[in-house]
Each structure stands twice: as structure tokens, then as C-alpha cells.
């Protein structure tokens, strides 16, 4: 149990995929224009991440080293397509908002990276823990960026205007804002870690 939690927390902070390992950035920057979209993307990602980890780990006994990459791709691709079909059917608004970033989950470096670095070498339970941790790490990073961009760029959070006197700067909902936002978050996390390290 303690090991399980250790793997989960690892994905949230120490090995946060977006802010520490800095992979899988494309979807984070592109979809964080609003908190709602960020949450949607985060959940879609998590589904694929966790199930891919599970099945890559499950299929270990029959996956020889030489063909492991194609097997990863097939497994991740299958779950990505499932998420693609389900969202297009049941959440058409979200589908339009996320656009090509849903099928692009299959090349998200985080998922393939984790399959290779973790799920292929650990058992199913540990892989679930890692999947959950990484997913939470991804979700909190993309939602944090979404909060910054939606608030500074639109004055709203989840579509609700917070302060009527606040005049938002549209640039934050546009590409420059995404880059600045993530730079800010990475810098903040570095500062935070330094302070935690000092204690």
C-alpha cells in the first residue's frame, strides 16, 4: 500500500510529466484556453494513460523486447481511438474543442515514455499507481495553466466572470500566453521545490 502511494505521489510532483520531465507539452499548451477544455483533455488523457499502463504491464509475458514498441503503439492507439469515438458520440462540444489533440494522444510522449520506462518493467498494480499519479500530475498542470490563461485572457473561470472591473488581455488565450504561462508555472514549481528542499 505504501509503495502504491509512493508511485502515485511521484507522478504528481517529483516526476510531474509536464512541469518536470517536460514532455507531452503540445496538448497542454494548445487546449488550456479554458478550464473546461483543460479538464476535458486531462480526463481523456488519463483514460488512455491508465489503461495503456495496465495493458502494457499485463501483456509483458508475451511481449518480447524486439517488438515492444509496435505493441505499445497498438495498445495506446486502441485506447486513444476508443476515447476518440466515445467523446465524439457523447460529448460533441468537447470533441470540437479538443480537435486533433484527441487522436494525438497516441503520440503523447508521456504515455509511450511511461510504457517504456515503467509499465514494461513493473507489475499491474504498480503500473496502475504510476498511471494514476502521472494523470493527476498532468491534470493539475493543464488545469493550472487553464486557470491562468482563462482568467488573464478572458476574465472568467469556467465561463463565469469573476471581477467586473478586470479587463482581460486577450493575448493570454492566444499562443504567446500559453508559452508565458507554462514558463511561469515551471519557474514557480522550481521556486516551490527549492523552498521545500530548504526545510
Amino acid at each position, binding site marked *: 500500500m505504501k509503495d502504491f502511494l509512493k508511485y502515485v505521489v511521484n507522478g504528481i510532483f517529483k516526476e510531474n510529466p509536464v512541469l518536470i520531465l517536460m514532455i507531452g507539452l503540445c496538448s497542454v499548451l494548445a487546449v488550456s484556453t479554458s478550464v473546461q477544455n483543460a479538464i476535458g483533455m486531462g480526463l481523456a488523457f488519463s483514460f488512455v494513460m491508465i489503461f495503456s499502463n495496465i495493458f502494457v504491464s499485463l501483456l509483458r509475458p508475451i511481449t518480447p523486447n524486439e517488438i515492444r514498441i509496435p505493441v505499445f503503439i497498438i495498445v495506446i492507439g486502441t485506447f486513444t481511438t476508443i476515447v476518440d469515438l466515445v467523446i465524439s458520440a457523447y460529448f460533441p462540444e468537447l470533441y470540437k474543442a479538443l480537435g486533433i489533440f484527441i*487522436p494525438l494522444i497516441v503520440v503523447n510522449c508521456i504515455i509511450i515514455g511511461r510504457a517504456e520506462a515503467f509499465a514494461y518493467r513493473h507489475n499491474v498494480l504498480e503500473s496502475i499507481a504510476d498511471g494514476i499519479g502521472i494523470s493527476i500530475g498532468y491534470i493539475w498542470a493543464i488545469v493550472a495553466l487553464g486557470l491562468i490563461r482563462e482568467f488573464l485572457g478572458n476574465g472568467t473561470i469556467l465561463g463565469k466572470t469573476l471581477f467586473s472591473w478586470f479587463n482581460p488581455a486577450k493575448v493570454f488565450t492566444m499562443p504567446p500566453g500559453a508559452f508565458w504561462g507554462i514558463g511561469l508555472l515551471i519557474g*514557480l514549481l522550481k521556486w516551490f521545490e527549492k523552498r521545500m528542499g530548504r526545510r
Partner: protein
Amino acid sequence: MNIIGKLFMLFISASLINNIVFMRFLALCPFVGMSTQIETSIGMGAAVTFVMVMASVVTFFIYYYILVPLNLLFLRTIAFILVIAVLVQLVEMVIKRFLSGLYKAMGIYLPLITTNCAILGVTLLNINYGHNLIEAIVYSLGVSLGFTIALILLASIRDRLSYSDIPEFWKGYPIVFISAGLLALIFLGFQGLAH
């Protein structure tokens, strides 16, 4: 003449107006990871161009001559990424064997390209935009050129940054992203070219 004009607009749009990195947020991993030196940037850009154009052509045929007739459109994502992975493997083997000079220049970047979201992204966009084969090729060339430009620009900035005095917590990636954001702001100016 009109076709040439349209293709030219497509090219400019792909490389500048809708720059793959600064406007579409694709290919960010290599963008951030490979922009440390200008030489590596050019090598990476060349490799991406190579793979992207070939991937566009191959996926074009697979989509319109296999997936569509057999009504298997939902297998699009998996089919494309498998094709790209196989293509990259083949290209690497061929270049290593027959063009060793080229391999020394850009071969090492090839394995990284499989997970480059821009490659899969462009093949999917070709379908979404309904490009024919010529348009797909021109589009891929434009996108890879835009990617190379973005990479070289950021590499140049990072080169200068290494001589500057940067506050502690901005050092490393934070300042890289702030710079990238400024580049994105500049590229936003190209939007006016379209109309």
C-alpha cells in the same frame, strides 16, 4: 497560374501564418529539446522534412485507397501512427546503409520523430482539410519549413541567453518558454497576410 497561386498561399500559410509550433502547438518536444544549438536544429529540421513529406504521401494512399473503400475510417489513427513508425524504421535503415554521410548528419534524430506530434498531426490535417496529393506534399513542405525556422530562431535566442545574467528561478526552461512566447507574439503578426 491560379493553381500555382493557391499552392503558394498554402505554403506560406503552413510555414508562417499558421506556423506549426507557434500557432498550432505541435512539435513542441523537439522544439524545446533540440533547440540548444543551431547545427542540431538544422539537422532535426531536415529529418522532419524528409519524414513528414513521405508520411503524407503514404498515409494519403492508405486513407483513400484502403480505409475509405473498406469503411474502416475509425482505424485512421492507429493505421497512420503504425505507418509512421514503420516508415521511420525503414528510412533509418536505408539511410544508415546507403547514405552514411546523411546518416551522420541527421540519422540520430530519426527515432525521435515517430513521437513528433507534428508528423501525425499533419497527416491527420491533410485528411481534415481534404488536400489532394499535391496539396498534401506542399503543405508538409511548408509545415516542416516553418518548424525548422522556429527551431533555428529559438536556438539563436538560447545561444544569446547563455551569455546573459538571468535571475535564479527563470534559468533554464522558464526563460526558454518566455522567449518562445515572444516569438509566438511576433508570428501572430503574420495573421494579417491571409486577407
